[in-house]
């Protein structure tokens, strides 16, 4: 392998990591933008999506199981998210830091539950036959460079989900309500929008997308009880860099952070790239404290 293909390969890995980060961060960014709430159990939605995929494959076999798993992961985590929103998050409205702590408690319980059910070591999901090949790019410079099918699939999945969410927000009635609540919650409320239902829908959609991210993640890494934890901190950083509730910002930030981590890991090591990443985020905040895409506000106090 030449230098170019090594760099290209790592770049490609970076983009596929970025795709998972994007899926993980999308729900966080949406609900944070809309409700100013951080769901610390969001990582466990990834974990749950991964285990649901594993179970689907166990039931439906290698071929169809994964496709079924995607659906089950989305629906299952979305339902769990809805439950979480109704029973806990709604009760803590206007207390963002308390929400953060309570959802952390939920995350601990879910992790321990996963440990009790599936064991602490983790389960492997083998990619279905239709994804196990590689795409190779023949050519003069890129000879020897090939794209693993699963990673290509993850990138396509992220792009499709992002497109679908963008479409929902831009074109549907729900999207109109989301934009209205995002713009000005009291007014939207006063004009008769059911803001609670909008919150619920957005939160469930976000956790569902995180479930999909877990599904995707299970293709490239074993599903463990703590798999969510290892991704979620990066997803939080994506939200900070991307800006509140902005799809474009989240996309750009996920790409930046995914590719940054991947390339910094070639140059240094995993641990050093973590430290560097945090430093870069703090430096970035000095210039764009509200993220890549920011919105002004006239409220006296922001939460």
């Amino acid at each position, binding site marked *: 392998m030449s230098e170019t293909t090594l760099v290209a390969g790592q770049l490609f890995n970076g983009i596929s990591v970025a795709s998972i980060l994007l899926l993980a961060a999308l729900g966080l960014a949406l609900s944070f933008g809309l409700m100013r709430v951080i769901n610390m159990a969001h990582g466990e939605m990834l974990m749950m999506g991964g285990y649901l995929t594993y179970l689907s494959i166990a039931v439906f076999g290698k071929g169809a199981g994964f496709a079924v798993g995607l659906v089950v992961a989305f629906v299952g985590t979305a339902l769990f998210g809805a439950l979480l929103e109704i029973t806990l998050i709604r009760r803590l409205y206007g207390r963002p830091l308390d929400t953060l702590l309570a959802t952390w408690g939920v995350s601990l319980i879910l992790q321990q539950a996963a440990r009790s059910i599936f064991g602490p070591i983790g389960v492997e999901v083998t990619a279905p036959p239709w994804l196990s090949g590689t795409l190779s790019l023949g050519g003069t410079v890129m000879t020897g460079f090939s794209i693993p099918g699963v990673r290509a699939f993850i990138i396509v999945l992220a792009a499709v989900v992002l497109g679908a969410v963008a479409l929902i927000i831009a074109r549907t009635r729900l999207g109109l309500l989301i934009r209205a609540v995002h713009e000005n919650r009291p007014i939207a409320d006063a004009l008769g929008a059911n803001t609670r239902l909008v919150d619920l829908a957005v939160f469930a959609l976000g956790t569902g997308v995180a479930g999909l991210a877990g599904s995707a993640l299970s293709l490239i890494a074993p599903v463990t009880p703590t798999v969510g934890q290892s991704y979620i*901190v990066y997803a939080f950083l994506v939200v900070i860099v991307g800006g509140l509730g902005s799809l474009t910002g989240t996309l750009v930030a996920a790409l930046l952070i995914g590719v940054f981590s991947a390339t910094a890991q070639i140059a240094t090591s995993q641990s050093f790239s973590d430290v560097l990443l945090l430093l870069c985020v703090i430096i970035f905040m000095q210039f764009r404290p509200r993220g890549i895409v920011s919105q002004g506000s006239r409220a006296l106090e922001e939460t």
Partner: protein
Amino acid sequence: MIRRELGLVLVLVAAACAPLYLPAYELSLLGRFLALAVLAMGISLIWGTGGILSLGQGVFFGLGGYAVAMHLKLASADPGAVPDFMQWSGLNTLPWWWTPFGNPAFAIAAAVIIPGTAAAALAYLVFRRRVTGSYFAIITQALALAATTFIISQQQYTGGFNGLTGFTSAFGFALGDQRTQFGLYWVTVGIVAVTFVAVRALQGSLFGKVLLAVRDGENRVRFLGYDPLPFKVIAFAIAGVLAGVAGALVTLDLGVISPAMFGVVPSIEMVIWVAVGGRNSLLGAIVGTLIVNFGKDWISSVFPDLWLHVVGAVFVLVVTVAPRGIVGLMQSVRTRSLRLRPVTPPALVE
């Protein structure tokens, strides 16, 4: 008021006499948990009074712990030799930044100054741009993650995952000796008492009042001519110092400091001590630390798998049912019992 002060003095005397009546194991636990209470009082200051939620107090705890542990490691090594773990990693000369820790006074000063400075720098950089509390919480959690992975990876300098351990003596006292244990316990009780008095005085000062006002709305304070930034930075630095002191004490007590003691999960557990006791109460911070840690010790010895479920449930319950913690619950019980007595109705307003 005087009755309350008297009560506190009695508790202090009872704590100081604990070596006389507590078995050795319970005493060592109590000493360690009291050391953690110093850190908890710092969290109470920044979170209860200042409204700043930090999920990375473990980092400052670790910095204090490592500063002392580096000295103990050097003091325990053979003269002229580098500490054992460095030899195992093939390192034969002491890194320059280890050298000054050979001096005990330097190490003790570093255990206070390094965490304080680090905390001040972080708070300044993040709060300078008026970001929200949730952002700060996430940044501090990322800090806890980055700090632990970094320390684990730098094994030849930090002892890696195992941390620093295997000390024989501390500042001239034999570590296994019971008299050293008692001495350390009394030092801890003294530091807890001094911290309590000092933080309470701070909360009663104009500084504390403005900090409290900053918690409820920064802009209101700004339009009264106060810049919230230095108030938050100073408070956070004080909490950092207290965490560092706790780290140093616990390291002396346990004879070890390792990344597992201050990573993401231990850091957020520190917040729950304060939440359980009552975030707005300094006494609550101490009580909560003792209850949660004794509870953890008991549950994890009896039902090891249950602890994470319990702590998870405690997070959810304390926030939803008792946001003011045990102290808040006791206060509302007391006011309710007061209400049973016939009282003259308060004068109508307007």
